């Protein structure tokens, strides 16, 4: 049996498959045993209560979806009292995703959620930075570095910085997160997009613009994963459009040490356990004894032009 374990800094995951933030919750336990997963990653929370965006909050486009859920949050207190204990019953490490409006708030919040039962903090820096005209932290290396640095001194938990595909400075942001002390990167969040109903002329999301996720996003986030894996030495966790075992393999080959599955769980709630089984089978068919053997193995074709050889 192939060894599916993968190491994300100090954490050892029993396999590289975990959910993406916002596409997973306790309710999925009604579908399958959540302990089969490499980790549990919760929906981003804010310290205080928040309402989220107007409906419709989702729509579909050409084999993908847009969402403008926003970050409705019941607040830290509710989360620590209800959500954290729920996951205590499982062996899989609990990664909690948090968001805040400034680097200092991020730090204070990180401290507050550094409680037993939490194995790592995912830092959702795709939210507006009140100190930078509302531009998301993840858009620039400076604010990204600030957030991570301040959080680093506020908690001992591993910090995973979740990057945004909306920036033109992917590599710079990744390196800033690493330099500031991030333990891993997650590539990536959704891409800002829009859809209009051509019959009615109406924006198809209540919030007008929203995040693109699902298969259409994959070529973009796979590219980011590749760029980041080459540019930093901390582990990179791939995320974006994964729904088949081939997608998982592509991310691992591009350099990801683990992957997150998002929208695919909406299409088929049993996607993650299926991928775990299929990944194991793929490794065996390829005669590989571990996931490690695949990670970063991408073969960059040389420039030679070869004629197809038919046989």
């Amino acid at each position, binding site marked *: 049996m192939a060894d599916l374990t993968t190491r994300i800094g100090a954490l050892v995951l029993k396999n590289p498959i975990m959910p993406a933030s916002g596409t997973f919750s306790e309710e999925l336990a009604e579908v399958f045993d959540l302990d089969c997963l490499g980790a549990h990653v919760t929906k981003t929370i804010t310290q205080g209560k928040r309402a*989220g965006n107007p409906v419709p909050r989702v729509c*579909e486009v050409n084999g993908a979806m847009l969402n403008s859920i926003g970050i409705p949050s019941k607040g830290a207190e509710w989360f620590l009292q209800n959500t954290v204990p729920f996951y205590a019953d499982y062996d899989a490490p609990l990664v909690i995703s948090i968001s805040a409006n400034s680097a200092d708030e991020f730090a204070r919040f990180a401290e507050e959620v550094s409680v037993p039962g939490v194995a790592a903090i995912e830092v959702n820096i795709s939210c507006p930075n009140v100190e930078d005209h509302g531009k998301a932290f993840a858009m620039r290396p400076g604010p990204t570095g600030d957030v991570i640095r301040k959080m680093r001194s506020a908690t001992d938990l591993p910090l995973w910085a979740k990057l945004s595909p909306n920036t033109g400075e992917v590599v710079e942001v990744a390196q800033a997160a690493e330099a500031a002390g991030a333990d891993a990167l997650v590539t990536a969040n959704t891409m800002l997009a829009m859809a209009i109903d051509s019959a009615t002329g109406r924006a198809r999301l209540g919030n007008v613009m929203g995040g693109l996720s699902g298969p259409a996003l994959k070529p973009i986030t796979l590219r980011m994963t590749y760029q980041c894996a080459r540019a930093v030495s901390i582990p990179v966790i791939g995320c974006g459009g994964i729904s088949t075992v081939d997608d998982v393999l592509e991310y691992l080959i591009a350099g990801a040490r683990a992957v997150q599955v998002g929208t695919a769980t*909406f299409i088929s709630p049993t996607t993650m356990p299926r991928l775990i089984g299929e990944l194991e089978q793929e490794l065996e068919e390829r005669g590989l004894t571990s996931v490690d053997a695949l990670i970063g193995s991408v073969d960059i074709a040389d420039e030679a032009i070869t004629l197809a050889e038919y046989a």
Partner: protein
Amino acid sequence: MPASLCVVSDSAPTAAPVRHSVNEVDCRVKAHEWVNGQYRLLTLSAPCSVLDCQPGQFFHLLCPQTDRFHPYLRRPMSIYSCNREKGELTFLYKVAGEGTGALAGLETGDVLNIVGPLGQGFEIRPEWRRPLLIARGVGLATLAPLAQECARLRLPLTAICSARAPDLLMSTNLFRSFGAEVITVTDTEGNSDTESLTPLIEGLIRSRGIDAFFTCGSARLMRMLQEIGARHGIGGQVALEQHMACGIGMCQACVRPFRREDGAVNLRVCREGPVFDLQEVL
């Protein structure tokens, strides 16, 4: 169609969150007929694992990819009937857009992937002895299993079925087969507006002693029932709809605002609903 609905006893699905009560299964299409020019009745062979369901619950259907239609997200559909003995599950749906258009292409023997049963169904409180069902359009599909449940509980039942035109009235015979007194109203006949319905319903309250409203399919009718109910101190439930992504409570796509003790709260139609207290809907 006079299927015996299998109702879960007392425990609502949320009571025991860690049992694997939601299943993703492939079902074969047993039959698929046009009910009228807009609605189709889809009958699936379903395994027992998904046939433990309540009236008002729904399934999330993975509509197929066809030449013309490429739905991506699943589509929510109320259970029209569910028969454990026959291993049968039916849906009554209106062909609307991409997803239902694709669904309409399914033929007997084809496979459809479904997730469910999902959500909270109707609750018939012990104090409700004389229910009135008011359904419009596809709301008839959602209320049909409730009518059956009323029959099982031997509650005398009155149903108002509303539609745009008489040929779009469905399930009236099904309602009658459950012993319901059925009143039909249509736009073409001019008796389906709230001005006509309000006195009709207030008459029923007086003559039949109606003490609960159940509705689905029209915001207008729901608002009317909220008003009548408030005036007469009559409670009830409504099955709501909202655009969904996950259908099982993870994504927060399907929220709507509700009146609760401490002001308005957003609740998930897929999880806390689709059936809600009539007066809580904002």
